[in-house]
């Protein structure tokens, strides 16, 4: 789960890293009030989690409260990088001297956390790593031996910073590492990490992504987890019901068990010339209720005109799958063509239930896919 800048900064500040004075605002009036309270020039920053918002015009300066009110009007309620801006962070403009980069992230290839640091901050770090890799210091952190601030100081040697600056920079990295572990963050990134004219270090921008698998350890985020900016309303609903669901932009609804099989089903619909409307993995050992609600979730999506169900499992009981499908279809507002492929225990019984209800059953995924793609031909 990606946190907004203001959420990440609140956490970072708790760990003693300085952040610019700022206030979150959701209306033009609030923006004006916040600007007046902060005093002087401010930045008004769209709170969206997609990267590249600065370049896309999502961060704008304002000299005073009237200007700020105007800027707010051009951001709030508008879309930046196709994401609606619901809130802005109004922040003091720092007297900056240097822009650095600092992050801690999980490196899946190395199977460890990695610390990255650069004295070329404030720009796209992937770009820096491509064009000037020597400007980035990298250190993989031993999972079995806690690193000390000195380890981080060492990785900064190549930048030949003044001793004071190097110590502060290393301190920030060490703090980020501690914070990443305590919050189960896959990524915590300060870009830029700013050094001001008076020599202080500030997190001018902050990004933080929490490990989805670890939300259970952080109950304070349980509710927040259901309101993700990156989720569509239907994805949000699915998350509440503990389904693994992704919206796609086609018209054939897809339900299956197991991530790989569902992805393969999505791909196969395309191979047969159809356009998938979603990805829905209902997981293993499906119960009637789980199948039913999954069917409903997909059937009730207005763009869906037909549904393909692909269940494969040794222990999955096909009679229960069939029952769930039947109940889901009964509860659905609008009826749409359905093709079911299933394999597992009690296959014959399941087949019989589907036959009684006139639902298409197919023994393999290719025939089921071909049938469902064809079912809509001539309608459009």
């Amino acid at each position: 789960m990606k946190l907004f800048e203001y959420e990440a900064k609140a956490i970072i500040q708790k760990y003693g890293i300085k952040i610019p004075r700022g206030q979150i605002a959701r209306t033009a009036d609030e923006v004006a009030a916040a600007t007046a309270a902060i005093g002087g020039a401010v930045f008004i920053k769209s709170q969206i989690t997609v990267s590249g918002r600065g370049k896309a015009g999502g961060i704008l300066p304002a000299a005073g409260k009237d200007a700020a009110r105007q800027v707010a009007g051009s951001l709030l309620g508008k879309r930046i990088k196709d994401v609606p801006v619901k809130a802005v962070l109004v922040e003091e403009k720092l007297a900056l001297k240097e822009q650095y980069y600092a992050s801690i992230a999980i490196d899946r290839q190395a199977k460890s956390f990695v610390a990255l640091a650069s004295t070329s901050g404030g720009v796209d770090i992937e770009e820096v790593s491509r064009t000037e890799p020597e400007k980035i210091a990298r250190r993989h952190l031993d999972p079995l031996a806690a690193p000390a601030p000195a380890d981080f100081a060492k990785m900064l040697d190549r930048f030949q910073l003044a001793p004071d600056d190097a110590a502060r920079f290393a301190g920030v990295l060490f703090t980020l590492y501690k914070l990443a572990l305590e919050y189960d963050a896959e990524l915590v990134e300060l870009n830029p990490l700013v050094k001001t004219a008076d020599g202080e270090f500030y997190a001018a921008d902050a990004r933080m992504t929490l490990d989805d698998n670890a939300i259970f350890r952080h109950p304070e985020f349980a509710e927040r987890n259901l309101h993700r900016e990156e989720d569509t309303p239907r994805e949000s609903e699915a998350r509440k019901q503990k389904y693994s669901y992704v919206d796609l932009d086609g018209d054939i609804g897809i339900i299956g068990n197991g991530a790989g099989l569902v992805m393969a089903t999505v791909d196969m619909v395309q191979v047969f010339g159809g356009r998938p409307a979603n990805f829905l993995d209902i997981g293993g050992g499906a119960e009637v209720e789980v199948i039913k609600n999954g069917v409903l979730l997909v059937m009730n999506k207005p763009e869906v005109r037909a549904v393909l169900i692909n269940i494969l499992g040794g222990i999955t009981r096909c009679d229960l799958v069939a029952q769930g499908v039947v109940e889901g279809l009964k509860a659905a507002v609008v009826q749409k063509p359905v093709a079911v492929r299933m394999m597992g225990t009690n296959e014959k019984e399941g087949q019989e239930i589907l036959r009684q209800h006139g639902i298409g059953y197919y023994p393999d995924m290719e025939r089921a896919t071909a049938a469902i793609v064809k079912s809509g031909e001539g309608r459009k």
Partner: protein
Amino acid sequence: MSVIVNQDTRVVVQGITGNEGRFHTVAMKNYGTNIVAGCTPGKGGQTVEGIPVYDHVSDAVKNHGANTSILFVPARAAKSGVNEAIDAGIKTIVVITEGIPQADEIEFVAKAARQGVTIVGPNCPGLINPGLRIKVGILPVHIFQPGKIGIISRSGTLTYEIAWHITAAGSGQSTCIGMGGDPIIGLDFVKLLALFRDDAETGGVVLIGEIGGNAEEKAAQYIIETKYPKPVVAYIAGRMAPPGKRMGHAGAIIMGSSGTAKSKIEAYAAAGVPVAEKPSDIVKLLKM
């Protein structure tokens, strides 16, 4: 030399008293796996289907010579479960559990690597050797039959789909292993390709991959560098997945420009590994 399991495999089931643990213990035992003990803290002294249950893995090692463990414990208990198995001297640990925090995985995968312990998974279906009739996992056994094809996969049910096509075509599998759908896993394609290369039972290998990470690119590189001596074919799920969305598996996510199906298909092409468009095409590519 078979892959990971053999006639000496003696399994302890961690989390044997839970529903899932109990169910799959019976299934593994009926297939022929030598399940010697179970382990659930606080339930020592009980039996499950005649199998003795202990509080500690070390007792299963001491009393029954267990050398392999399989975990059905909840995600929050997985790290301590794996660490306990490593400390008890278990050499192969199959982690079925899904949803383990990545920081925990990083820690126990590193610990296992340092002590020479093999981790399969997490978030995996385990493995099966139809010739030896040994299964350490949750795979449905009726789909498999003894044969020459090795399967290495990042998925569960998609593995069954492809194994089923191979079986239906009259062939069979030497060893079939699900390496897990999480970003951080123990065994990967490269290490498993090395094991299958040395396995006399295996005549060809199927790599079932998906979007996210660069495990497939690494496998392709390994095949080129070692002039891999056995035929390898591949399937990649998620060609149509949008960037930035987790497709069911924690590890199945395109981040920025990394982890796309396109990059994986190109890497395989460069290594001379044919990639199936549909699961059923694997059979044709294997030229069975």
